[in-house]
């Protein structure tokens, strides 16, 4: 890591003297590795590092300079960092934030400067709809995971459900996403305190409601607390359904056995049988002590591959921002998720899969692919996009 950074620094110094010839590509990564999303941010970083290593430090044939700075998960700090990237580092591409709020905070400055922002994770609804922008590219729209979960709940025949999310607008968006395709009845909608530690009161409510299943969107520590206490409270006969981010490898390894059998939905899984994916997962596990990658790592990897392809497609003429954006909109790389296409809002039309937490051959807990829930699915906001 430090060596990579030093190399980037050296490269930066060299170009400072080498005038304006577009002989390198500069990618600004806003690292999210301290603060509330540290675990996910570290996953992303590992994905970025792996991709750049695989490409031999080049993007589209040009030497790559990667600047990485932590912003601690604070949208205000993200804004400040992006100003530095734009004005001081003069980046050509931007990526990195984990949370929607940071992505929404930094978007306007990047769009005004016509610097493509390839999100490696968040897919906030404003950028899919009314505020869609030619220079923003999503990996998935936030609600689509929940929509897939709603469809799954129908297929499983759950007639009565309780749904749980933290009490902020994004939490409500996720529950609305679930309700969009779920056809059964809702026994209760529970909104919890942001950063809540103890879930005994909510679990008692769920027990009293006796639902067929529970859908929850509780990111990070909240989800870990909830699942541990849910199973400890003797509700393990009630199936849990979650969007993929509440049941990814980071959560699985922190919760352990209580995660077994948890259904979750995502647009990628590590056992997806696609050559590009198999290669990525093998390389990742080799580099990072046998650890399974998460969606965050996979999409960070894909982000770098997308930039690589776009730079190649424009023949290295990255000053032509419009051409770069057009190239990004027609992905010509082998994505680890398999085939996908962008809708006109630059959010993918792609498959969503059902995963279940199970044990692998070595007895390690991990997600296993069960099947496809939604095929070539597009988000619900594209109609609002005027692009």
């Amino acid at each position, binding site marked *: 890591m430090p060596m990579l950074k030093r190399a980037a620094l050296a490269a930066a110094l060299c170009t400072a003297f080498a005038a304006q010839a577009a002989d390198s590509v500069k990618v600004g990564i806003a690292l999210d590795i*301290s603060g509330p999303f540290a*675990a996910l941010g570290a996953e992303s970083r590992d994905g970025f590092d792996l991709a750049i290593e695989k490409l031999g430090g080049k993007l589209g044939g040009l030497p790559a300079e990667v600047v990485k700075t932590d912003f601690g998960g604070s949208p205000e700090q993200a804004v400040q960092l992006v100003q530095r990237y734009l004005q001081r580092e003069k980046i050509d591409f931007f990526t990195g934030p984990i949370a929607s709020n940071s992505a929404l905070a930094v978007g306007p400055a990047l769009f005004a400067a016509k610097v493509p922002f390839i999100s490696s994770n968040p897919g906030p609804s404003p950028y899919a709809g009314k505020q869609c922008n030619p220079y923003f590219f999503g990996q998935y729209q936030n609600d689509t995971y929940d929509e897939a979960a709603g469809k799954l709940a129908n297929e499983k025949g759950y007639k009565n459900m309780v749904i749980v999310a933290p009490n902020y607008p994004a939490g409500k968006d996720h529950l609305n996403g679930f309700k969009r395709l779920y056809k059964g009845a809702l026994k209760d909608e529970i909104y919890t305190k942001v950063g809540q530690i103890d879930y005994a009161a909510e679990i*008692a409510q769920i027990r009293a409601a006796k639902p067929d299943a529970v859908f929850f969107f509780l990111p990070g520590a909240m989800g*870990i607390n909830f699942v541990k206490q849910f*199973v*400890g409270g003797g509700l393990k006969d009630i199936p849990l359904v979650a969007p993929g981010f509440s049941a990814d490898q980071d959560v699985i390894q922190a919760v352990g056995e209580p995660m077994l059998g948890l259904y979750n939905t995502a647009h990628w899984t590590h056992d997806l049988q696609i050559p590009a994916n198999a290669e990525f997962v093998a390389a990742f596990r080799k580099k990072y002590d046998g650890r399974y990658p998460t969606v965050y790592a996979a999409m960070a990897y894909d982000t770098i591959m997308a930039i690589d392809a776009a730079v190649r497609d424009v023949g290295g003429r990255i000053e032509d921002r419009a051409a770069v954006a057009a190239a990004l909109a027609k992905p010509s790389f082998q994505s680890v998720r398999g085939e996908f296409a962008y809708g006109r809002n630059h959010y993918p039309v792609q498959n969503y899969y059902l995963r279940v937490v199970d044990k692998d051959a070595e007895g390690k807990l991990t997600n296993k692919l069960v099947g496809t829930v939604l095929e070539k699915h597009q988000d619900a906001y594209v109609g609002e996009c005027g692009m």
Partner: protein
Amino acid sequence: MDAIFIFEQLLNGLGYGLMLFLLAAGLTLVFGIMDTMNLAHGSLYMAGAYIAAKVHEASGSFVGAVAVAIALTVLVAAVVEVLVIRRLYARDHLAQVLATFGLILIADDAVRAIWGPSPILAPTPAALAGPVQLLPELPYPAYRLVLLGAGLAVAVGLYVLVNHTRTGMLVRAGASNRVMAEYMGVRVGRVFSFVFALGAALAALAGALMGPIGAVQIGMGEAILIPALVVIVIGGIGSVRGAFVAALLVGLVDTAGRAFLPPALRAVLPPSLAADLGPALAGIAMYVLMAAVLAFKPAGLFPARA
């Protein structure tokens, strides 16, 4: 909503209160007796949780893990006491806030360097993983009963220690008048070191016990530090009895707010307004309680100092 449900929620409230008390007890000791504001108490809590989780995973023994966690955390705390805290006893609260805030920053980076940024596994001991049937209609997590018991034991133990032992007498003497106590031959420095170690042991115990039902990750100490501070302030700083009563009060108010406020509002307000207002009010119930208590009793419910 039947009687059993209400009883269960009360029990949940008490349970959460006792969890908060586990952390608040050590905090109020150090804060109240030594008049030292230690924000890094949450970092000791985190250390306890991490060590216990790692030892438990490696050895399989939960009791052993808790013991090792306490021992190692006290050791770390002793080093920190000698290097930093000891020099803060005579300083004002702001210096203490500044220095211990610095310790938090160092501790978080240290944990990230040692164990990585991801939350780690902290399994529940197998024997306690499921629920027990308290009443025919009421299963209750067995592990939470352990937490309840630990909270009560700490409360009783501290009460006896402070009020009915010779050590406790020395502690009280050193706290109420340091100079006078020193004239009388009490080695106040040593007494304070003992109290700090005891506070660290309680923080480690709390962390080790909370691990199996919560996320063990960086920042976990800060997340629970604020509710714990609320507890000791409502109770009156330095009063173990106050912290105990306040912890139960906060636990009950917080739980009741989450369990009963949203349905109650739904009954009287339009649905969309109730859906927005209920959880928002439940979220700040604890702070409203504290502001209300302090508005009428500016030194908490049981002021320890006149």
